[in-house]
């Protein structure tokens, strides 16, 4: 039977003993370690594509490949341009040979293994180009499915890949509805567009934005109400790709047509 003195002594000991691990919890506050992701920071990167201005020259693709060291001849790319051609019969033809690295210089439309097809000008009802890149989703499925946390979202909204930690399982590639991810042919890890994070964090524009001669690509900060890109996104009629997946994409399009995949 425990006496009062013993009880007090033991109670103090237990309370003291418990205080140590609890204080450790205070030191390692997971919220601080989360890099203040949920904090309303000053920057949220967003992209604006004006499809009316895109002529399919492919300068953006080439600039991106050079800037980000994706081998020019490899059949993968961080950004690409799609060409849409609709016939009067309502049949859509879409292609993006080599991601439009060399631009669309001819009228032949690639059908993959099926070869090429050429549509007569008088049969075309409309045609346009759509540049594609990573949507830096607010709810990125690729981050959700990474089994080791090698891909993550920064406080300013950009999704990055840690090349030293990626195990190369390909789950993120499967999880992306936009097909922007691939295995880097040199590093053999998951690779994707990151809005040229190394540039935008140093007051520069991404390589594709700088390379676009027609202003079809623009990058801006959604949290800055005076940013010209933000102003357009807020005031004009913009659309995003594949909204139905609930990924909350942050690449906004002007003049997006219903045929765009």
């Amino acid at each position, binding site marked *: 039977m425990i006496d009062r003195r013993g009880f007090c002594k033991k109670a103090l000991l237990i309370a003291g003993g418990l205080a140590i691990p609890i204080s450790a919890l205070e030191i390692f506050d997971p919220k601080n370690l989360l890099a203040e992701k949920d904090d309303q920071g000053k920057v949220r990167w967003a992209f604006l594509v004006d499809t009316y201005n895109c002529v399919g020259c492919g300068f953006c693709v080439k600039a991106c490949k050079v800037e980000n060291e994706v081998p020019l001849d*490899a*059949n*993968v*790319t961080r950004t*690409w341009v*799609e060409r849409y051609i609709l016939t009067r019969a309502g049949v*859509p*033809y*879409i*292609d*993006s040979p*080599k*991601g439009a690295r060399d631009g669309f210089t001819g009228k032949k439309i690639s*059908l*993959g*293994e*099926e070869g090429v097809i050429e549509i007569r000008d008088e049969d075309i009802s409309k045609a346009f180009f759509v540049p*594609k890149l990573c949507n830096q989703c607010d709810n990125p*499925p690729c*981050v*959700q*499915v*990474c*089994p*080791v*946390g*090698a891909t993550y979202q920064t406080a300013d909204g950009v999704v990055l890949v840690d090349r030293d*930690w*990626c*195990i*190369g*399982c*390909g*789950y993120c*590639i*499967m*999880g*992306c*509805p*936009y*097909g*922007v*991810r*691939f*295995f880097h*042919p040199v590093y*053999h*890890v998951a690779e994707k567009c990151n809005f040229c994070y190394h540039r935008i964090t140093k007051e520069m524009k991404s390589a594709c934005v700088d390379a676009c001669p027609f202003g079809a690509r623009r990058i801006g900060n959604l949290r800055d109400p005076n940013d010209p890109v933000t102003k357009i996104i807020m005031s004009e009629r913009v659309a995003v790709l594949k909204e*139905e*997946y*609930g990924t909350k994409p942050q690449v906004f399009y002007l003049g997006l047509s219903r045929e765009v*995949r």
Partner: protein
Amino acid sequence: MVHGEAWTIKELFVYPNEYIYWTIQIVMYPLMTGLVAGAFVLSSLYHVFGVKKLKDIARFSLVFSFALLPCAMLPLMLHLQQPGRGMEIMLTPHFTSAIAAFGIVFTTYSMIVGSELWFVYRGYFVETVQSLRDKTNRTFGESFRYNLYRVLSLGAYDISHEAREKDERAIKILAGIGIPVACFLHGYAGFIFGSVKANALWMTPLMPVIFICSAVVSGVALCIVTYIATMELRKLLADRKRRHDPALPSTEELKSAEIQVVTMTVKYLVMFMILAISLELLDLIFRGYTAVKSWDILRKIIYGKDFFNIFILQYGLGNLVPFIILLLPRPTIRRAVAGSLLVLLGVFMMRWNVVIGGQAFSGSFAGFMEYRLPIWPDSMELYKEGLFGALTVGIAPFILFWIMSKIFPIFPGEERH
């Protein structure tokens, strides 16, 4: 060359970065975990539910399940672009990912199967140690066995009636816990696919359940085939050995035991098969009936490009034909083998049609991708993701099983010597 380019053929409009990234090894992965789970469930039918007729095959399938375990990890390692970092799944699991559960589920499951196996064979270890201990001039093989079993017995030498009863209780509890864990192990493999919202063919909440049912089907079928194969071998050996030791079971005894076990097991096989097929058909009908945006392209895959794989190989040859073969009156061993092999083909094709079929169309819904299985391995990558890589994974469990059967005798009669 970019990963995936060697075996992907693109047709019409496919996004530039899209290739068939998950190939034959990812077909093998659910197949192998399915076999592990199925074999374990079969052994649990005896240990937990006391299905006495399955006593013989219970032990057998438990050892087989244990042999299959490391092989379930093999396809994953062969598939990773950075296999050296595979351990990271255990070290820094990112729990919003379905794959991250792998480390925990797999370890838990291995421990359950491992400890159940230990309880089942503890008596045998101790008996062997005791019989060899007093022997003065042991041969090298005997010394090896003596030391091996001494280590394996973990110092628990009590084999009194009470201790053995305690073992039995532990086995029952472990097998009982093992069933939901085995189902979870495989259900989560289904979840890996079913939760990919970007893939129209994979995304269905039925996927984990379908995977569990087909897992049990494949596990049971493989156990039947392997059980019969080993029994045939035993019959051959028994004939030879009986000349020296008439106490051994005769060929006729073995034969009648074999057919009894097989008939009983086939019943469970058919039961789970009905469940699996019903769910798969429900999924198919539901997709056709609701006909959401993706149905246009899915229909072209299911009824067009993959028709032969799905309806002829999977449902026809893999489900319907074995169904008839196994349910015909007066079962025979030969028919059971043929039926089980076809069932295995069916389950393999089901995995194939899910994994490869799910990547047969582009995320743009405007193009197709075709998978050409690399046959001759020109490079390490083509070996890993090709026919020979898959064969390696397919053969490995049998080699392991053979080695393990030397340590854990799988048939009761063999324990006496």
